[in-house]
């Protein structure tokens, strides 16, 4: 053991953080989000005077649906990163492939991952906890469609940022969806959130899906207005994310960065 070698390597990691905002954010990001989500869950449980109805369905259903959103975003970002890591990106974009075709392919790849992940989770929840996700009924289809759409919008946005800022922004691929978790009210109703976050939650499509899911599990009516809100927001966010990608892609070509993706 030589102290100078440990010090040299220690310096190497310090230098890394010094020049990378995403890496610095990582130190605060995960603990803060964990604290927010579990803090609100604790508040909700403490405030519930009576027993929460369908508690297993409430939490497991929420977990599986949240995972659909998360996989949807990861499906886009990680498929893109696969080509970045393999330094194959340039080969794709010297072929006749268009940006629209590329994004469509990423979405298809994400669908495969969602079906596999959600299928396995639903099966395990049924085998291990006797929870049948399909008790949610036909509402499950628009819930899933909306979560997938939001995941795609976040994924396309993240991909555009990585394309522009390179691999130092890669960390966003793993963490950005979680930024939406506290205001998506996955494991607690929106009313648990402080007023300013309740306002923010209105503009997060996932919060409407999870509110709707809880209503259906508790035997309420099909939450048409919640789904309408979520769908409208998702159409807007998908359009904005595609536009954002197109603008950054144009900038990347202008700066000659497309050939350097993965370096």
């Amino acid at each position: 053991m030589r102290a100078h070698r440990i010090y040299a390597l220690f310096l190497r990691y310090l230098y890394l953080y010094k020049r990378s905002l995403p890496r610095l954010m990582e130190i605060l990001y995960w603990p803060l989000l964990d604290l927010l989500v579990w803090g609100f869950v604790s508040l909700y449980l403490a405030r519930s005077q009576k027993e929460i109805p369908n508690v297993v369905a409430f939490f497991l259903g929420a977990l599986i649906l949240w995972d659909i959103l998360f996989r949807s975003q990861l499906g886009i970002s990680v498929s893109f990163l696969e080509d970045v890591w393999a330094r194959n990106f340039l080969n794709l974009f010297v072929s006749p492939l268009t940006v629209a075709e590329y994004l469509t392919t990423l979405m298809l790849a994400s669908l495969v991952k969602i079906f596999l992940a959600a299928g396995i989770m639903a099966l395990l929840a049924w085998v291990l906890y006797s929870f049948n996700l399909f008790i949610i009924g036909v509402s499950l289809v628009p819930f899933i469609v909306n979560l997938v759409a939001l995941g795609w919008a976040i994924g396309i946005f993240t991909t555009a940022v990585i394309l522009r800022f390179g691999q130092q922004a890669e960390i966003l691929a793993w963490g950005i969806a979680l930024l939406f978790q506290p205001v998506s009210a996955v494991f607690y109703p929106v009313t648990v959130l402080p007023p300013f976050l309740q306002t923010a939650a209105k503009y997060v499509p996932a919060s409407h899906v999870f509110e709707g899911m809880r209503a259906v599990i508790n035997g309420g009516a099909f939450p048409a207005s919640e789904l309408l809100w979520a769908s409208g927001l998702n159409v807007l966010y998908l359009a904005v994310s595609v536009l954002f990608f197109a603008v950054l892609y144009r900038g990347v070509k202008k700066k000659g960065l497309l050939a350097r993706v993965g370096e």
Partner: protein
Amino acid sequence: MPSPTTIDDPVTLVVEVHGLVKDFGKFRAVDDVSFDVRRGEILGLLGPNGAGKTTVIHTLLGLTTPTAGAIRIFGLDLAHHREEILERTNFSSTYVSLPYSLTVRECLRVFAGLYHVRRPMARIEELLETFEMPDLCKKQVRHLSTGQMSRLNLAKAFINDPELLLLDEPTASLDPDIADKTRSLLVHVAEQRNVSILYTSHNMLEMEQISDRLVFLHKGKVIAAGKPEDIVSAFEGQDLEDVFLKIAREKRP
């Protein structure tokens, strides 16, 4: 110094570059570059590191937007006909990799799809034979040596039977035997199938051997263009390597 060559018959011009300029911020990487590539011609693009060769190639591939100038390929404006042009073009670089986790055959199958190759499996078998890779077809790309990777890159570049090939140092990591076979193949496809090839290399002997014409870039500008022997005599050099060293060290006549 010889001036850039032009020919009268526009039909034979596969690539036409006029007044190409590329700025990266305040740095001018390519400065008023003009040249053309004729059908079935091998045009060598050479120059010291940082001369602008790769930027020119990336601009021709639509990876980088030019600051000024016009690029026509197959008589079409690149800015408006990217897809049509790239369907008939291909590219290979020693410095670009291919998907690591795919096998050689899977990798070529993906690119055959991207270029809409008819009867892809037959084409892949043909290329595996040409580049002496049949025994590697089930090997994952991650397990290929650098030389094998270069051969796979070249096989990928031929997948769509291109009319225009842009090659960035394609023989840089090949052993002399495969490098020689690759040069012969390039000359063969240029002569027999009228494939036009734009080629960069730091191997001056190779450039002299296979190039019909050369465009010499230095600090983003074309400083010489013409047949290799004309450039050598214009710069009063012994051979192309000698000329290259003179230019790189800025001892121009």
